[in-house]
């Protein structure tokens, strides 16, 4: 019997025309549930073609069903047992492991922008500030996504950026002693920054605030802490990426940017800084015609040379205003005249150079654990 007070909440339509109703509509969830219960077997051959030319072949044999149905048919029994076994044996870790004489100071929701690899996105979790480290920890499944010792942090900047939902939000950029930077979004920004400054002061290290960089605001990867730098030249520039695996040399679009301190090439497709040369390391530049093959044919190419610890490295760039770039770079290049052998004769592996601050591996970032479920 329904309690009276629950019926009282219902407003009855007036009059005798009131008819009984029952919700009988099938929903999408019903459909999915029915399909999973029965199981669906897909058998498909697909050919993806463009302009009538087959390019990709897909041969698909798939069975999709709820696990209970799978088990009833004797499928995936081993997997089921193994996964549950693994999970039950796993130590239930809800907090990151702390070192001896390390104490947690602050804990809040936060996310880290992970700019590397194929998985470029925000990685959410809990930010832990201890008296020695800053840690991003995810509880389910337990993983320390990122950690960094406090003494390796040099400065910070706060910048308002527009989230893809249209919300404006403040992001915290931390500049590291290695020259790299990381980007965080945290729940209580001021608490984190003030506590971090206090902890670092206790260690005798100042945490410097830098004004938010106005420079190249649309270049997410370039939003490094460059507020004290001024842009001297900036233009769209294609760069030759030397052989990658089975691919030959390819050209990628990007932005070449010169400040009084360094020359930076930001890759449009990877959305990150892939070349970062201090001005003092520039060795020279030249413009020469080169056959780029394909439909492009012969084009002027800027061959840029810089010195790193291995010796002389060469970068090939093409775009507009190559002669101006050559003059600008030659004006900055110090020391001896650079040898200008054609880079193609040298072999283009030499062109990799120092690959972006993100690749300098200052962070002990663990690989994500991927568990097939």
């Amino acid at each position, binding site marked *: 019997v329904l309690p009276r007070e629950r019926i009282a909440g219902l407003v009855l339509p007036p009059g005798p025309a009131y008819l009984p109703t029952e919700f009988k509509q*099938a929903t999408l*969830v019903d459909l999915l549930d029915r399909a999973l219960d029965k199981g669906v077997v897909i058998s498909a051959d697909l050919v993806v073609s463009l302009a009538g030319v087959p390019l990709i072949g897909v041969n698909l044999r798939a069975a999709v069903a709820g*696990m209970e149905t799978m088990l009833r048919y004797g499928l995936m029994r081993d997997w*089921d047992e193994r996964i549950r076994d693994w999970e039950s044996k796993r130590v239930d870790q809800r907090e990151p492991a702390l070192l001896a004489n390390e104490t947690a100071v602050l804990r809040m929701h936060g996310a880290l922008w992970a700019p590397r690899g194929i998985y470029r996105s925000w990685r959410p979790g809990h930010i832990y500030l201890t008296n020695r480290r800053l840690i991003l920890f995810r509880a389910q499944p337990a993983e320390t996504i990122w950690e960094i010792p406090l003494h390796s942090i040099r400065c910070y900047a706060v910048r308002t950026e527009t989230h893809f939902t249209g919300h404006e939000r403040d992001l915290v950029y931390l500049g590291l002693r290695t020259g790299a930077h990381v980007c965080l979004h945290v729940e209580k920004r001021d608490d984190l920054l003030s506590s971090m400054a206090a902890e670092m002061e206790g260690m005798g290290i100042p945490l410097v605030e830098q004004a938010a960089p106005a420079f190249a605001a649309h270049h997410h990867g370039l939003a490094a802490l460059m507020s004290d730098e001024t842009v001297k030249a900036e233009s769209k520039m294609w760069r030759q990426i030397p052989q990658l695996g089975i691919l030959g040399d390819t050209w990628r679009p990007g932005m070449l940017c010169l400040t009084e301190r360094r020359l930076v090439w930001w890759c449009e497709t990877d959305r990150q800084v892939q070349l970062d040369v201090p001005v003092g390391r520039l060795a020279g530049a030249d413009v020469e015609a080169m056959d780029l093959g394909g439909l492009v044919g012969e084009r002027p190419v800027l061959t840029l040379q810089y010195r790193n610890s291995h010796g002389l490295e060469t970068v090939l760039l093409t775009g507009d205003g190559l002669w101006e770039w050559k003059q600008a770079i030659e004006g900055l290049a110090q020391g001896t005249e650079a040898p200008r052998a054609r880079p193609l004769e040298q072999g283009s592996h030499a062109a990799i150079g120092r690959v972006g601050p993100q690749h300098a591996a200052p962070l002990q970032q663990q690989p994500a654990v991927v568990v097939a479920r």
Partner: protein
Amino acid sequence: LVVDIDEGNLKAGLLALVISLVEVIKDALKLQAFKRMEGGSLTEEEIDRLGRALADLDVALEQLKADQGISEAVQQVRDGLDELVDDVLDRFLNPRSWLEETERSDRVGAH
């Protein structure tokens, strides 16, 4: 099903669309979870953990919808999808009514 998207509501609309699909998957997972629980192969501890994870997911989604102000939009998308499914299923199950409808519309078209 008409999803009304313009420049202004594109972001919210897209998010609502994604969230409603996530919700559908979540609901389907929930029903499958009940089946597994009834199936009897799970231990007490596993059932407990599963229940808690599903509840957490519920809370997280509700929170997200409230934060972005898209609760209503998500409900609309889901209602629209459900109507569509109901309609399609109805045509599969009652081909006769479908035929009648097409004939009717043909007649209307002829006039």
